[in-house]
């Protein structure tokens, strides 16, 4: 009865996902609550149109695209773990690569959701696809983004799923299959962020984005926020699942964040210098961000806070003493995530539109509907990741096994 095996295996996984302790149910309930109100808010937006957001013709992209951009960065950061793990065979990191790849996949799913809620006509999204739609490739960078993001999603779902599938059957995965994918995934991770940066970068109408340093800045900041998020997740996973993640791996990643942050700050400084010293008309958006423009200051405190967070976190990650102390390490992680979230989210998208192409200043601040939908998508992302971990960790630890073609003794769970 081999053909029944997939069903049996599926129910094993399902059982693993459904059963859990009080804290597990509480967490799922907590996330579901936010997902539900997010869905309600989205239905309202679907019904009334994007008029429910604060976006208008003057600032035509906002909070959704800001979150999208940040999450592309998080997704790209999986490469940070893949490179040392597979290329240099750095053992401590290799063991946690799985969580990085799953995080990347989750982040891409969230990216897709943020794009979907931003569309005026989501039911027509198939128009963007090649063959059945009318994809504008290679002219439109958004078409490129669709390709690279989906490709990246496929790779990052395939590698862990394939690896764990093999593991669940009690076999070692085939390096012949995995290795080329891993090698492709490295430039691919860089590409998703580069393409996303180019998406903004290629618009000469928006001088704030039309700077060559944008793509390098994107990658540098992604290499800060992504791994920082992972460090927090590792610690949680280690605690909850009693998983053996070495401190060595954590500290190594933290050290790498420090270098990435150094580059990020340097590139920021280069941009800051160029704009303020040359003092051309293209300074306006930068001025709006850091000093306010014509009496509009909405983002000023946020941007300085972001800079302060990034600088503080850089110091905390750089000094071995604070890096290897869990309180300061986690503080630094939170600061980096918050700093980059501001800088690469609202701090990137909004000043592209302020001042507008006709000189108008419209201070954008997301509405309740936008915020609720955003929280909903984050909650959904957390739920997806939780479920991934829920059945993958037992497989990884050897506690959950599949029924194989070759008759085996059922596992002990």
């Amino acid at each position, binding site marked *: 009865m081999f053909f029944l095996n997939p069903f049996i295996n599926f129910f094993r996984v399902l059982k693993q996902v459904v059963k859990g302790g009080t804290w597990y149910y509480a967490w799922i309930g907590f996330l579901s609550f936010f997902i539900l109100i997010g869905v309600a808010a989205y239905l309202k937006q679907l019904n*009334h*149109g994007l*008029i*429910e957001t*604060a976006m*208008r*013709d*003057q*600032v035509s992209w906002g909070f959704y695209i800001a979150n999208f951009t940040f999450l592309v960065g998080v997704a790209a950061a999986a490469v940070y773990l893949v490179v040392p793990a597979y290329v240099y065979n750095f053992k401590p990191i290799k063991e946690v690569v799985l969580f990085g790849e799953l995080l990347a996949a989750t982040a891409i799913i969230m990216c897709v959701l943020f794009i979907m809620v931003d569309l005026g006509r989501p039911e027509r999204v198939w128009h963007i696809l090649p063959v059945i739609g009318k994809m504008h490739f290679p002219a439109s960078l958004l078409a490129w983004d669709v390709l690279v993001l989906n490709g990246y999603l496929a790779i990052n779902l395939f590698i862990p799923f394939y690896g764990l599938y093999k593991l669940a059957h009690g076999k070692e995965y085939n390096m012949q299959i995995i290795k080329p994918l891993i090698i492709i995934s490295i430039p691919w991770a860089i590409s998703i962020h580069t393409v996303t940066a180019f998406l903004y970068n290629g618009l000469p109408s928006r001088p704030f984005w039309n700077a060559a340093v944008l793509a390098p800045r994107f990658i540098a900041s992604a290499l800060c926020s992504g791994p920082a998020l992972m460090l927090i997740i590792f610690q949680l996973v280690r605690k909850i699942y009693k998983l053996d993640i070495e401190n060595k791996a954590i500290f190594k990643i933290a050290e790498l964040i420090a270098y990435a942050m150094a580059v990020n700050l340097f590139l920021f400084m280069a941009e800051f210098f160029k704009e303020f010293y040359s003092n051309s008309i293209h300074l306006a958006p930068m001025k709006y961000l850091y000093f306010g423009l014509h009496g509009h200051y909405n983002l000023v405190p946020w941007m300085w806070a972001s800079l302060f967070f990034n600088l503080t976190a850089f110091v905390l990650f750089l000094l071995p003493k604070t890096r290897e102390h869990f309180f300061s390490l986690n503080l630094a992680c939170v600061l980096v995530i918050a700093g980059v979230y501001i800088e690469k989210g609202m701090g990137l998208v909004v000043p592209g539109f302020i001042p507008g192409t006709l000189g108008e200043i*419209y201070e954008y601040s997301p509405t309740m509907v936008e915020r609720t939908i955003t929280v909903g998508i984050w909650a959904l992302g957390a739920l997806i990741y939780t479920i991934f971990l829920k059945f993958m960790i037992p497989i990884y630890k050897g506690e959950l096994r599949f029924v194989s073609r070759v008759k085996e003794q059922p596992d002990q769970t």
Partner: protein
Amino acid sequence: MTYARRLVLLIGLCVLFATLAVNNAYPGEEQEQTAATTRRKADPDMPKYVVPPPPLSEGIFPCSQCHEGMEPNPTRRELTFHTEISKGFNHAKEQRWCLDCHNPDDRDKLRLASGKLISFEESEYLCGQCHGTIFRDWKVGVHGKRTGYWNGRKVYRLCVHCHYPHWPKFQPLKPLPPPLKPDHIKYRKLSDDEIPRNPIGDISETVYKYEKRR
């Protein structure tokens, strides 16, 4: 079918097509066609175009109805009849008085500096004596308003359609309202009657309305 019946059918069809043709025309077209009287050909510089008749004041023209037999008086003075014109006169007023443009002998004509008499329908030659560059622009359709068809019959305006000859400067207009600011655009539930109406109704109706004079 008899000839009579065919004839009736033919006439019927003609009427039908004529009605269709009229219905298909834009609402402004008819108005423009009836208004258009003057078609220039004398001047080879000038393209084919149509100019509506000048906006002569009701009951004033022809001038000869009063001025016939009246002795022309070139002195600058307060006029007893055209009081508004003499009071408001503001067109190079130090250099000019009535008979510099109006012909003293045949009062229904205008007189160019050369002594040539022209009708009120072609007054642009008179204006063009001083405003040469603008006259040149006007002839090629760059100065002044034009309507009609970009690749067909065009309707010009005479200088005097827009500029009152005795005080030609444009009178100011009340602007139409500014757009709504972005934070005032919100979701609203409106009944059909509550939907804001556009301040401009039919476009072709308003073609001449804003040529301002007082």
